[in-house]
């Protein structure tokens, strides 16, 4: 096992915010894929409940179904069977447009590869979800500016991604995820493409966001990253192996 990443100072105190309303209620969810003639059981009956103000890590080796679960949580995919409620609404029966709406308003994605639009500046990247939400231009720009300032990039709003460092790009992505004031932030290996120092900075930023009252779900295979969360859910072979507060 590699030497652990140093935890940010605030985490040493490790305060846990009180949990709020139930956001995600998953019961008995299964997901099957057909790959040619094979059927892959990615999830075999997962139960998971996530409340507001939680900071959660989902861990598991490859093949454990953690990517599938993440796609489910992100409303990018729907379960084959089982019950999934997001904010009290039944997701499993939603059509494509409704799912897109939930993704737009309630979920903030942070990807391992940042997934920024290369030919747009930071400001435009961050305002994109608001365009899809039908927000007028003035308000869009205000909120996007604010979001970028919140992640410490107020000075670089007109930089293109290729003019930003890896850490800065991820910050732009985080600002983008926050701009719609979503119910949850869903991060897939957020430090995977960053060096360890920058990774620490990003995790410190997550800590700040948690302190500000956001709900964070981080999907990772790295223990060091998962340790920053307050609760760790471990998956194996499509089932929840353990679900406990982080030590």
């Amino acid at each position, binding site marked *: 096992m590699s030497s652990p990443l140093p935890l940010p100072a605030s985490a040493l105190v490790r305060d846990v915010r009180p949990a709020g309303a139930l956001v995600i209620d998953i019961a008995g969810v299964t997901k099957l894929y057909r790959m040619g003639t094979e059927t892959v059981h990615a999830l075999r009956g997962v139960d998971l409940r996530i409340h507001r103000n939680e900071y959660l890590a989902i861990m598991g080796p490859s093949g454990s179904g953690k990517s599938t679960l993440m*796609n489910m949580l*992100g409303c*990018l*995919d729907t379960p084959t069977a089982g019950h999934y409620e997001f904010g009290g609404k039944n997701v499993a029966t939603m059509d*494509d*447009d409704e799912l*897109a*709406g939930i*993704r*737009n*308003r309630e979920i903030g*994605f942070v*990807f391992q590869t940042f*997934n920024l*639009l290369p*030919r*747009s500046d930071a400001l435009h990247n961050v305002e*994109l*979800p608001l*365009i*899809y*939400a*039908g*927000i*007028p*231009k003035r308000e869009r720009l205000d909120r996007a500016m604010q979001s970028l300032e919140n992640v410490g990039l107020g000075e670089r709003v007109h930089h293109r991604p290729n003019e930003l460092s890896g850490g800065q790009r991820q910050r732009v992505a985080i600002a*983008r995820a926050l701009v*719609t004031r979503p119910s949850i932030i869903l991060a897939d290996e957020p430090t995977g493409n960053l060096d360890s120092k920058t990774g620490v900075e990003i995790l410190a930023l997550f800590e700040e966001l948690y302190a500000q009252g956001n709900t964070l779900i981080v999907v990772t295979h790295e223990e060091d990253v998962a340790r920053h969360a307050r609760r760790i859910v471990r998956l194996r072979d499509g089932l929840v192996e353990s679900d406990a507060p982080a030590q």
Partner: protein
Amino acid sequence: MRQLYYELTESVRIAGAQIYANKLRSLLTALGVIIGIVAVTLMGTAINGIDAGVDRSLAGFGDDILYVSRAPWGNRFDWWKLRNRRGIRVEYVRAINEWIADQPNSALKVAVPYDQGFYHVTRGDNRLNNIMTIGTTDAYARTTRSDLLEGRFFSEFESQAGANVAVIGYDVASGLFPGESAVGQTVRVRDQNFKVLGVVSRQGSFLGAFSWDSMMVIPFGASRRFGRVNTDGDVQVQIDVKRLAEAKDELRGLMRRIRQLDPAAEDDFALNEVGTIRERIDPIKNGIALAGLFITGLALFVGAIGIMNITYVSVKERTKEIGTRKALGARRRTILLQFLIEAVAICLVGGVGGLALAAGLTQIVAVVAPSFPLVFSLGLVLTGLAVSVFTGIFSGFAPAWSASKLDPVVALRYE
């Protein structure tokens, strides 16, 4: 609705950025559309030009003239029926004009006789063969639309006297009197001298065919003296063109009285008008136009295929971006709209470029080959732009649709 507007503006912004970022690729793609639009537009200008040319040629005849002839124009008339018909006599002209004078409210204006022959015209060593020579009265000047470049038409006196005077067309003048004025000079027709009174301004020929520029007009009496018995002459009656039906009725009635026909007998003459020619030409013209547009449309179709191809490539390249946009909340129709707009944008670039190029080419042709009919018009420009937009929608739809249907999970994994 507001959402749609923002998505639209975002799509336009993206389209512009895409074209700008891939200049070479966009240019090559647009080139297909440019060539297609140039072909279709030039075809359109040619059709316009043919229209204008036909109109101009027919205008020389005058569309407010009724021609009293033995037979209807152009019909495959029963020849034996025709053979037995009496000729049109120029005495009718006087009768008609007297009648018109008595009827101040007639839809008929004036009648002129019209004799036609083909003669050789010489001046010194210069010679022009088979010049169509019209014999008519001074009133003829009122019936035709052509105006004189120089000189004058013959007067009533000269007309009644059948004087040996002539008004010649532009090409006749330049052929017999190169580099000098023809007015006041003498030409020889059938061993008779004719004094040139005036030259008609240039009409231009329609694709090198019939033109008023190679014609000559002499007084009716002079024409008669060439010894042609006027069995095939015409009487032309100028009418108030707004009262065409009424005029035809009046003239028909008048002619029947002049010819002393029984009420029960059918007409033994025909009233022709230029509209008849136009009616016969129109279907031919439309047929040519359609065929021409179809063929040049194929060129545009090839351009459209290029657009479709490039849009598919673009979708494939940006699969991950599409996944990201969907993850951020873009709906299917948003993605569809985005790629459609991108395709339309390239087509518009091609369309505008093609129209500009076609306009330039039209100018060049006008300078180099002025008799070739090409007419650019605003209608053509608007049609060209509309065609570009439609081509973009048509060719971009399939790839845009496939983009909109991408599974975001799969798309996000795409490397």
